């Protein structure tokens, strides 16, 4: 078996996941990226979306995350998320709630730049909602 990536998923409430995996796909603000072992150090914010974790045994896990950032350092990948829910537990209602939140944010946004960013996240969520 090839080298493994040390992956940690942390929410403010607790450490959700800490294991060695093959790779993780992260929805970065400027585009999705996949982190494999020996990835160059990156610090990126994330938009609401789904991370895909390919576990050591080959099993794939999908987790919905919202708000936070990803840090890749030589030791591995750390994902700080404000909220993380396994895809299996994500219901349309949760998504609806997030969409509603974001819609309010769009309305309240103080600058065009911010509005554009929030709008983008909103569009992405809507796609996800339709795909569910």
């Amino acid at each position, binding site marked *: 078996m090839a080298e493994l990536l040390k992956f940690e998923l942390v929410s403010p409430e607790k450490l959700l996941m800490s294991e060695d995996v093959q790779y993780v796909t992260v929805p970065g603000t400027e585009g999705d990226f996949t982190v494999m072992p020996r990835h160059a150090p990156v610090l990126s914010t994330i938009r609401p979306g789904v991370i895909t974790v390919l576990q050591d045994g080959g099993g794939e896990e999908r987790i919905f995350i919202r708000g936070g950032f990803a*840090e890749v350092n030589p030791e591995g990948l750390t994902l700080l998320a404000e909220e993380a829910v396994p895809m299996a537990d994500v219901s349309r209602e949760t998504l609806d709630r997030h969409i509603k939140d974001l819609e309010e944010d769009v309305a309240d946004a103080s600058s065009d730049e911010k509005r554009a960013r929030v709008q983008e996240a909103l569009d992405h969520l809507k796609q996800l909602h339709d795909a569910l």
Partner: protein
Amino acid sequence: MPNLKDLRNRIASVKSTQKITKAMQMVAAAKLRRAQESAEAARPYAERMETVLAGLSESLAGRDDAPPMMIGTGKSETHLLVVATAERGLCGGFNSNIARLAREHALRLLAEGKTVKIICVGRKGQDVLRRVLSNQIIDFVNMREVRRLEFSHARDVADKVIALFEAGECDVCTLFYSEFKNVITQVPTALQLIPASIDSDDDAPSKPDASLAAYDYEPEEKELLDELLPRNISVQIFRALLENAAGEQGARMSAMDSATRNAGEMIDSLTLTYNRARQAQITKELIEIISGAEAL
């Protein structure tokens, strides 16, 4: 000579008080364990956040375009104090210690001619501060209904702070809470939120400066900071609230422990008095009977 019935009543009432304090102590002990666990579970997030921010702020240090949330507005006219206390009393000096620290801070600022605004989180702190600083309290966050502290609660508070800051209604923001050292020690603490106080001398386990410099930032450092700083405020508030929750239970546990002990001592001394009084009465009755018999 107190009468026997009164004494009996008093003993009974102290006993029932003791039962209550004993029960409260045990409830606090159980809650303390849970609160401590969640405080510990939240630690990794806060630590990572700190490490990342420390690295970022280092690389941005000295630049003029650093976000105001980090370097401040350049003034220190209006101070915003966020005072986090418990919702319930009966926990020793826990609430009053935090409130006292905040009050002294506020009065000192007022004496210097600054404007002070206060947001109270938790009812007990508001009760105390209202007496002296009622005009300064601008908002009150009720946590009474909160059964289990969640991140969203902290975010609500943080949103208020950020909104005030962005509207230019405060220059410096300080958070007051009680640091949970251990079950019997809680240290009232003031933590500056805006401008962010990032101690670079912290003993965070891994902070290799060289590798931090090599990071690719996506998006740019400045934008990243813009996004992270408000989040950091929520994280700090969340941590403070968790520490408070654990501290409150710890303080209540030790307060109730000594209350139970005091009640025990009181029962002992009351029982002693009661027995004396009872014996005195018996002796008195005997004397009456004997002297009655002799008179015949």
